[in-house]
């Protein structure tokens, strides 16, 4: 049925759409009607007003197309729906249209106006999709319309539409190659585009339309290099391949001196000059005339540097593209980096393996050393497909050298036993190649192969014979034994190729086996008629050679063989017989050639060279289809040779406006230091403009003013801003991480406050940055010795946070240089503000500290969870402790303990405080360390117990760099080390305070105390009484709380008080020395009450001592934590007992 008639029918049908049964039940139509009828039914569905019917029809039509059935006659009915409102119908219509437009050009034109309208749509996605379909319609008439649309789209605001335009270019080009010039203009324009979205597509278009116009790349070269990492993966492949070609035309060969040097190698006797660039002055002098010192073009370096990270791509094609780029462009010494990545690809699907191995095989010929460390990765598994096995074998053979040949041969031995006979044959050939390449193992290999001659499998024997033949040709004199052995094999071996090889060998070296050779000929003559053709030819050959050398014994045999051959069925054999007879048997007439017969037959034949089939494949660009097939594929662009003279590098210079440089800088900084805070900043900016790019500022809508303070600067600003925010919020918090929850909480709070924090910073920057006296940190930093000047720091919390931020601000000022620098500084910022501020000179120390902190907070340390249901495999973050109340508590404490809060260091070890030994002076080689629990709130984290450590240097030399390392803490415990003590003079003492969060347990905290020379393992184990802090409460509160802690939580014990303890003053003294709790006022003088709370969880600890008559007493401890309670009872009992 013709299209037009279908169209007519359709119109008729559409007039009476009043019968929806057809549409509703398409199956009924399907069974009884012919194809024609069924299509009719589809048409009706398409003409109905219901979208669901249309959709159903389109789905069936698409299914037809997918199966390869012809649905072209429905074209008119379908094309009408191009303007359908339903998106899915519309999309399916597009699918149909693109498929059949070529066949129904006239009707396809009906749809064009819809797309033209779409091109003007305000929505970028609709514009893009209209262009996409329009350009996919292969109808020559619309070429001008397409051209216009592409040109317009190329200057569209939306990068996505521009990308679509780039995609449309090759489509139009294939439709009408005459448009090339105009299209090149568009390409040129799009190449200048700065978005990553467009880059890949336009380079693709460039490669398809005008790969020869390399000059278009000049101006965009650096930009492409810089954008590369952010381009989508498919685009990366295309760009890298194109840049490889570009670099080959624009830069000098980085290995040029090396090749020259290789020529002179013999002269200098140096074999391994990996870096022969400028470092070999003597070589240079001698060849100064020939070469200038090679200096790599910075642009060349840029390309190598920017592609290297892509070796880590998950996409095998990208990895391969980078690998070939390095192989073709990098200096020899740097090519090695690709080996690891290529070996990684070997784990991928077998098709990927196949392609990678092909390329590796080529690479191993040129650069064997690169893959040598990965030799084992090429070992063959019995489950590998044969084609992979053979390629691996090829690589192994290429990698073989004197040092590894023994392992490789051992490996080959297992391969020979394989069931896969093709593979075995390949292995034998590989052994042959190893034997030819490596002289040392030639005899071993030969012996091995000879052993194989007795193999049961004929194929193996035959293959061995062939290989042995080739090997023997190299040094026949030494191996007449083997030849004899092989001669015997003729009785058994049936494989024609092998028989032929043996015969050839005997004929060739008949002088070495003068006795056996005629006998072999005799046997062969007997079986001549039953032999295969190639064997027959070799029999004649043998006969002729023997006739020439030993005519006495073999004359008759030869004639017999030649006579047999004369009547052979095969004309080749008959021909050969005639030829040989004419040549060797002296005749009365002619015979002009017979005197040359010896020369003809017994000429020395050069030994065959066993070469890799992958030799010289590298003239094709690696990774290309042409390389794989070893034949030029259509559209393959030759990889040009390096130029002799360096082309003008200035062509790549772009007159950059400031903004562009800034943008590029920003691209790099943003990608290099992706701090989370940046994202918050970005989110903020995103509010302003929705489709702001992520990595690269490609839109270019941020002017130079914004980019000036973006990147490094803004990042650090906002971070310190968040600090400010948090320290305002919770006064207790310094800038080191507290517990995880808290950190997160304040982080997010900080984020909200970024702008505010910034303002403060700005302000502070002006006023206080230079004013060093204002911030005591900067003062402290100047001092090299620990400075117990903490009394000063009793200013308000607000003041503290300000000085903190000013510190970080002044640090972040010069932070625009390198990554490393930034990192270092960030670390510096983490130095606890409230700890004794000695200057953190040793970066290592800081690093360790960071490690410690990380460890402390390892929430994901899942040592002890088992994988049962999902709940148990997750780590639920425990609810946040209330930060505000925490800070309130600290504030209150601050009020009550104003004098002492900040002066932890200044506390002298009073006699009431018990000193514990941390490190004995003998064990510590003169360094004695003691500690006590200072019972002061640890200023930077109220959940920590402050431990005051006193160092005494009993030696006569200085002890340097005292610091803490590798704390081994129970899970949940945390520790805050003291600032490194730089120098401890002989017989000097120093004190430091560390904070340990014991998690309300008496588990010991183990860590190492390090000096510059030694490390000591030390342990701090807290008595239970030190795990609490005093709480002040009234009697009523006490009673109320005690009422809440009855039952299990109450522990009572009777005791007898000694005579000394009869009065309550002693009792109070003893109890408070045993536990860090405070007395609660009490009406009765029989009772002493104390209250405290545990440091970490803040559970109340209430102690009551009720004295009775006659020195008896009752001790009651109420505590939510029963373990603590029990232990505390024990401790207090001990303290009170006489």
């Amino acid at each position, binding site marked *: 049925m013709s299209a037009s008639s279908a169209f007519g029918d359709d119109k008729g049908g559409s007039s009476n759409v009043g019968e929806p049964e057809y549409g509703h039940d398409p199956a009924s139509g399907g069974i009884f009607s012919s194809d024609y009828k069924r299509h009719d039914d589809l048409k009706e569905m398409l003409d109905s007003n219901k979208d669901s019917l249309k959709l159903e029809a389109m789905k069936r039509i698409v299914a037809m197309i997918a199966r390869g059935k012809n649905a072209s006659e429905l074209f008119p009915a379908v094309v009408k729906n191009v303007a359908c409102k*339903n998106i899915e119908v519309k999309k399916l219509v597009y699918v149909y249209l693109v498929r059949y437009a070529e066949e129904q050009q006239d009707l396809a034109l009906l749809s064009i106006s819809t797309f033209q309208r779409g091109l003007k749509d305000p929505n970028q996605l609709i514009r893009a999709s209209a262009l996409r379909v329009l350009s996919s319609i292969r109808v020559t008439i619309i070429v001008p319309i397409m051209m216009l649309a592409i040109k317009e789209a190329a200057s569209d605001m939306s990068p996505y539409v521009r990308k679509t335009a780039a*995609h449309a270019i090759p489509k139009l080009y294939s439709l009408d190659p005459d448009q090339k010039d105009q299209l090149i203009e568009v390409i040129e324009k799009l190449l200048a585009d700065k978005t990553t979205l467009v880059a890949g597509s336009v380079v693709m278009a460039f490669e398809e339309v005008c790969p020869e116009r390399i000059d278009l790349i000049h101006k965009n070269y650096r930009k492409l290099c810089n954008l590369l990492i952010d381009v989508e*993966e498919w685009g990366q492949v295309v760009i890298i391949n194109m840049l490889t070609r570009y670099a080959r035309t624009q830069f000098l060969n980085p290995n040029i001196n090396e090749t020259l040097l290789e020529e002179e190698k013999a002269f200098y006797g140096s074999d391994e000059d990996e870096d022969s660039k400028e470092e070999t002055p003597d070589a240079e002098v001698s060849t100064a005339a020939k070469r200038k010192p090679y200096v790599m073009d910075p642009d060349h370096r840029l390309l190598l540097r920017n592609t290297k990270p892509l070796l880590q791509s*998950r996409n*095998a094609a990208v990895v391969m593209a980078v690998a070939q780029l390095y192989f073709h462009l990098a200096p020899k010494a740097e090519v090695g980096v690709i080996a690891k990545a290529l070996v990684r690809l070997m784990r991928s699907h077998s098709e*990927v393996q196949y392609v990678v191995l092909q390329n590796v095989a080529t690479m191993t010929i040129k650069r064997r050393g690169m893959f040598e460390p990965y030799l084992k990765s090429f070992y063959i598994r019995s489950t590998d497909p044969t084609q992979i096995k053979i390629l691996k074998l090829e690589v192994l053979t290429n990698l073989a050298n004197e040092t590894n040949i023994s392992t490789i041969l051992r490996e080959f031995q297992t391969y020979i036993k394989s*069931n896969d006979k093709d593979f075995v044959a390949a292995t034998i050939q590989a052994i042959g190649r190893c034997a030819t390449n490596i002289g040392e193992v030639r005899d071993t290999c030969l012996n091995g192969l000879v052993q194989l001659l007795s193999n049961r499998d004929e194929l193996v024997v035959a293959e061995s014979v062939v290989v042995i033949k080739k090997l023997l040709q190299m040094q026949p004199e030494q191996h007449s034994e083997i030849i004899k052995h092989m001669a015997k094999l003729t009785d058994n071996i049936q494989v024609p190729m092998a028989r032929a090889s043996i015969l050839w060998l005997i004929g060739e070296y008949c002088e070495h086996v003068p006795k056996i050779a005629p006998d072999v000929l005799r046997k062969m003559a007997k079986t001549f008629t039953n032999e295969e053709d190639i064997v027959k030819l070799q029999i004649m050959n043998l006969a002729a050679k023997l006739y020439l050398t030993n005519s006495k014994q073999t004359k008759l045999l030869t004639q017999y063989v030649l006579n047999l051959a004369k009547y052979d069925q095969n004309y080749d054999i008959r021909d050969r017989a005639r030829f040989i007879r004419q040549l060797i048997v002296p005749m009365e007439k002619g015979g002009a050639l017979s005197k040359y017969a010896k020369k003809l037959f017994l000429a020395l034949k050069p030994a065959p060279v066993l070469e890799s089939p992958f030799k010289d494949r590298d003239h094709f660009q690696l990774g290309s289809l042409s390389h794989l097939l070893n034949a030029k594929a259509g559209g393959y662009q030759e990889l040009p040779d390096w130029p002799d003279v360096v082309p003008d590098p200035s062509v790549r210079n772009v007159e950059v406006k400031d903004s562009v440089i800034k943008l590029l800088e920003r691209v790099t900084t943003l990608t290099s230091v992706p701090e989370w805070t940046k994202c918050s900043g970005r*989110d903020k900016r995103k509010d302003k403009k929705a489709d702001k790019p992520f990595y690269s500022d490609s839109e270019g809508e941020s002017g130079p003013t914004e980019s000036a303070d973006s990147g490094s600067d803004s990042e650090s600003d906002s971070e310190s801003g968040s600090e400010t925010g948090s320290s305002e919020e919770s006064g207790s918090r310094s800038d080191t991480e507290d517990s995880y929850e808290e950190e997160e909480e304040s982080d997010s709070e900080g984020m909200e406050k970024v702008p505010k924090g910034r303002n403060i910073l700005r302000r502070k920057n002006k006023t206080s940055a230079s004013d060093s006296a204002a911030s005591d940190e900067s003062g402290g930093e100047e001092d090299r010795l620990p400075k117990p000047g903490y009394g000063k720091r009793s200013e308000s919390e607000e003041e503290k946070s300000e000085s903190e931020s000013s510190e970080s601000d002044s640090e972040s000022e010069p932070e625009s240089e390198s990554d490393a620098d930034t990192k270092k500084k960030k670390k510096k910022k983490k130095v606890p503000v409230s700890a004794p501020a000695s200057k953190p000179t040793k970066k290592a120390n800081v690093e360790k500290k960071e490690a410690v902190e990380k460890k402390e907070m390892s929430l994901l340390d899942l040592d002890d969870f088992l994988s049962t249901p999902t709940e148990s495999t997750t780590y639920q973050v425990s609810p946040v402790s209330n930060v505000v109340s925490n800070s309130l508590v600290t504030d209150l404490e601050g009020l009550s303990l104003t004098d002492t809060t900040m002066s932890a260091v200044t506390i002298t070890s009073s006699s009431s405080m018990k000193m514990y030994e941390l490190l004995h002076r003998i064990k510590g080689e003169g360094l004695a360390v003691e500690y006590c629990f200072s019972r002061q709130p640890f200023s930077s984290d109220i959940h920590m117990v402050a431990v005051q450590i006193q160092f005494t240097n009993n030696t006569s030399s200085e002890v340097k760099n005292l610091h803490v390392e590798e704390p081994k803490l129970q899970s949940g415990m945390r520790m805050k080390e003291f600032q490194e003590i730089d120098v401890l003079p002989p017989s000097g003492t120093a004190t430091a305070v560390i904070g340990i969060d014991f998690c309300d347990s008496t588990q010991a905290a183990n860590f190492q105390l390090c000096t510059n020379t030694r490390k000591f393992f030390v342990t701090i184990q807290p008595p239970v009484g030190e795990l609490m802090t005093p709480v002040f409460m009234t009697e009523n509160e006490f009673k109320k709380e005690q009422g809440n802690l009855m039952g299990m939580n109450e522990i009572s014990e009777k005791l007898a008080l000694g005579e000394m303890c009869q009065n309550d003053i002693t009792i109070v003294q003893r109890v408070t020395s045993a536990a860090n709790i405070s007395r609660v006022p009490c009406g009765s003088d029989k009772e002493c009450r104390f209250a405290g709370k545990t440091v970490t969880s803040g559970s109340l600890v209430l102690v009551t001592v009720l004295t009775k008559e006659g020195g008896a007493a009752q001790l009651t401890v109420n505590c939510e934590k029963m373990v603590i309670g029990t232990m505390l009872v024990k401790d207090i009992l001990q303290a009170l007992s006489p």
Partner: protein
Amino acid sequence: MIHSLFLVNGAGDIFLEKHWKSVVGRSVCDYFFEAQSKAGEDPENVPPVISTPHHYLINVYRHKIFFLAVIQTEVPPLFVIEFLHRVAETFQDYFGECSEATIKDNVVIVYELLEEMLDNGFPLATESNILKELIKPPTILRSMVNTITGSSNVGDTLPTGQLSTIPWRRAGVKYTNNEAYFDAIEEIDAIIDKSGSTVCAEIQGVIDACVKLTGMPDLTLSFMNPRLLDDVSFHPCVRFKRWESEKVLSFIPPDGNFRLMSYHVSAQNLVAIPIYVKQNISFFESGSSGRLDITLGPKQTMGKQVEGLTVTMNMPRVLLSVNLTATQGTHKFDPVTKILVWDVGKLNPQKLPNLKGSLSVQSGAPKPEENPTLNIQFKIQQLAISGLKVSRLDMYGEKYKPFKGVKYLTKAGRFQVRT
């Protein structure tokens, strides 16, 4: 680039075709069928690239389907191969499995997907997150709703993901339970020789993630011992520079399941081999029989249980039947394919599993030359054999608290014992 795509099943039927440029006739596949018949039984032996007079055919074999791409001009073969695998993965992602039946059932969605994935033969949208925004994956519920209401699979919102520079993440993600789970799966590839010594062994690992987090979270994953990782490859979302400088993984994750990274543990570290095999397989020169005796035992299991232990052997062609007894698990010999499978299950260190018995060989046939290789599969839960440990996961950029978790698993990869 890619001209056309044909999907061919094992029987050699073309059950789907799609053309991006002008139509290429089906007859082009004849070259492929020719190569296929040449390759013999193993479909993996079909050369991935076949040259024909006018076209080049590049194929991959996945899920018993050949994905056959027709190309006309020079293109990096890996580019096509990688793309075809991506297509197969997308199907699997959409339909749960990628098989001929599911593709036929969902032919319209398949077509819509292919349409979006390639434009003029050049990949356009291959990120699963974008595709799912464009075309919703079929679910039973949705297909029911669709038949009732007549609504469609095609998303009616425009795919904004395509416009962003974080193309892997769709916009406006919302969850009530925010969770991020990571699976560190390590595979041991090893070849053990007859005497039990290791010929080669390496560890290949992946970290698969299932991230369901609201909004635009920015995650940072750090390891206790990142130095272990010798060679890594990342999902495009990972910021490479950050890894270079600090050895932490910093990324804005795609939504849903994805492979965050794969890695290789450096060859310098000795690989712990969790099990050992004592085997004795011999065929007698006369009497057409043989003996088999295999014992498995734990070697370096780090105190964990070895599970899912399976031994697979490709027995020689001449083997007719087996008469074996296993102290543990079940064994099965398929006389057609000559594959012997011994499903052991858990490895009990107190009572080592053993498989023992006689083999009967075709009478008159010569004794098989090569003993079968043992391919061993096993699993060890809660252990990353390399010792890799995730130390922490932080989330920035969003305010809620996610559930997080890491699971470790060690598996046998290509673990072979030569006999």
